[in-house]
């Protein structure tokens, strides 16, 4: 009996938005989490000037659930403002992907990656917001 839901298998077999964004870009935030078992999820998002997520990408090393969480999260993030990404939490991932109890830690890890990516791009935005220029320019 397979422990994977149809939703997980769908994302695993046909992942959405796999890939990478330039991590140094000012409008890109990256979250990269590795769990104790060595599974890894990298989630990246790009925002427009008003702080809305216009693009999201993931890469994952781990079981089908890890990959499905990354794939699903990109779809959930695109179109939301940074503020609204708060609505994407572990319970929601678990519900939408039909995760089993023992798979919940992987949803937590995905949320960790989302929060880290949001925090990074928010930091970058605050830093560049005042638009001060060095002397002489």
């Amino acid at each position, binding site marked *: 009996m397979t422990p*994977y839901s149809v939703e997980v298998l769908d994302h*695993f077999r046909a*992942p959405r938005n796999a890939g*990478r964004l330039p991590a140094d870009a000012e409008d890109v935030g990256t979250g990269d989490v590795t769990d104790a*078992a060595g599974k*890894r999820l*990298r989630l990246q998002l790009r925002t427009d000037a008003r702080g809305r997520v216009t693009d999201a990408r993931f890469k*994952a090393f781990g*079981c*089908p659930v890890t990959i499905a969480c990354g794939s699903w999260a990109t779809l959930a993030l695109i179109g939301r403002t940074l503020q609204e990404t708060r609505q994407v939490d572990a319970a929601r991932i678990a519900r939408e992907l039909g995760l089993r109890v023992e798979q919940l830690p992987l949803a937590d890890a995905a949320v960790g990656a989302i929060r880290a990516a949001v925090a990074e791009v928010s930091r970058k935005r605050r830093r560049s917001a005042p638009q001060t220029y060095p002397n002489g320019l």
Partner: protein
Amino acid sequence: MSVRVPIYLDHQATTPCDPRVVEAMRPFWSEEFGNAASKTHALGWKAEQAVEDGRGRLAELIGADPREIIFTSGATESNNLAILGLARANRDRGRHVVSLETEHRSVLDPCRALEREGFRVTLLPVGNNGILDLDRLRDALDDETVLISILHANNEIGVIQPLAEIGEIARARRIPVHTDAAQSAGKLEIDVRTLGVDLLSFTAHKLYGPKGIGALWLRRGSPRLRLEPILHGGGHERGLRSGTLPVPLCVGFGRACELAGELRTEDARREAQLAERLWKRLSTELEAVELNGDAVHRLPGNLNISFLGVEGEALLIALPKLALSAGSACTSASREPSHVLRALGIGETRALCSLRFGFGRSTSEAEIDLAADLLIEQVTRLRALSPVWERAKRGGDGP
């Protein structure tokens, strides 16, 4: 050429019962149903004869005397009987047992049980190739050591231990050696007179026989081996394993051993060719695939391969047409890197990226070719998703 799916490449977990074995067992369910211990009528005598014929065939496969064979329910029970039985019967002589880090759970767990009974257990490490360092064995033995248990061929990586040398070291100190030959019996040539051990476990379902029956070979002669039973009852099997014998299974095990004796050489030659064929394709058409365990001292039908950057569990699910395992059957449920691969010191990530391939009597070249196509396709697909692979390719660190 058409290939039936799923392609079974998990022969270490179990093998299909050979139709000739099923045929040999058939009369002993409903017609010749007697109890081999019934001494008072013909049904009992016939059952006893059938059991003894089977026993003789087991003995013949491993070069033993039939009186040295004790039927059990499988290698798990044989290992328990050998380890618990021998240690407990000799606890007045000493309370130290030596085994190996890469043993099957059915050896490690009885060793743990002995620890709870006050025994000391030394689990020896292996080298990067999975083979025991004989000096470590010499150093581990002391006057308290009552048993050495070292597996013959490993179920995950197929690596074969040097039992002859181990036996020599043990004999010099008069310490009995047990070996778990569940994976090697019927595949490697085994002659217990020269193998170097005193007790040997094997099981029918790994050699195209039925599930639920195994045997322990127990050397006769001096110095006499003392063993305490773990099951108490009617005194069957020389008092060492009470319980009515499953006559059809004894017959089937016997027939499977007979067939293994006839087919072993040809099976081994074919399986080694198939392993080579798969390895060639994977290692030339994919980057960064690595063989785990010694390349030479291994079972012919076994490969354990790491596909760097791709987690084994994900790869298994991506390959529904292949029946494979990411380690031993029980380890794959807990989804942690196997204790065997960790004992090789290969690092957690590489251990997570490994799959085990087991070829058998029915495996064909067409199956191997299709398996290679599917593996190459899915490894490539999953690598494109993998941050671990991306980092490895760039040779740097961080995203």
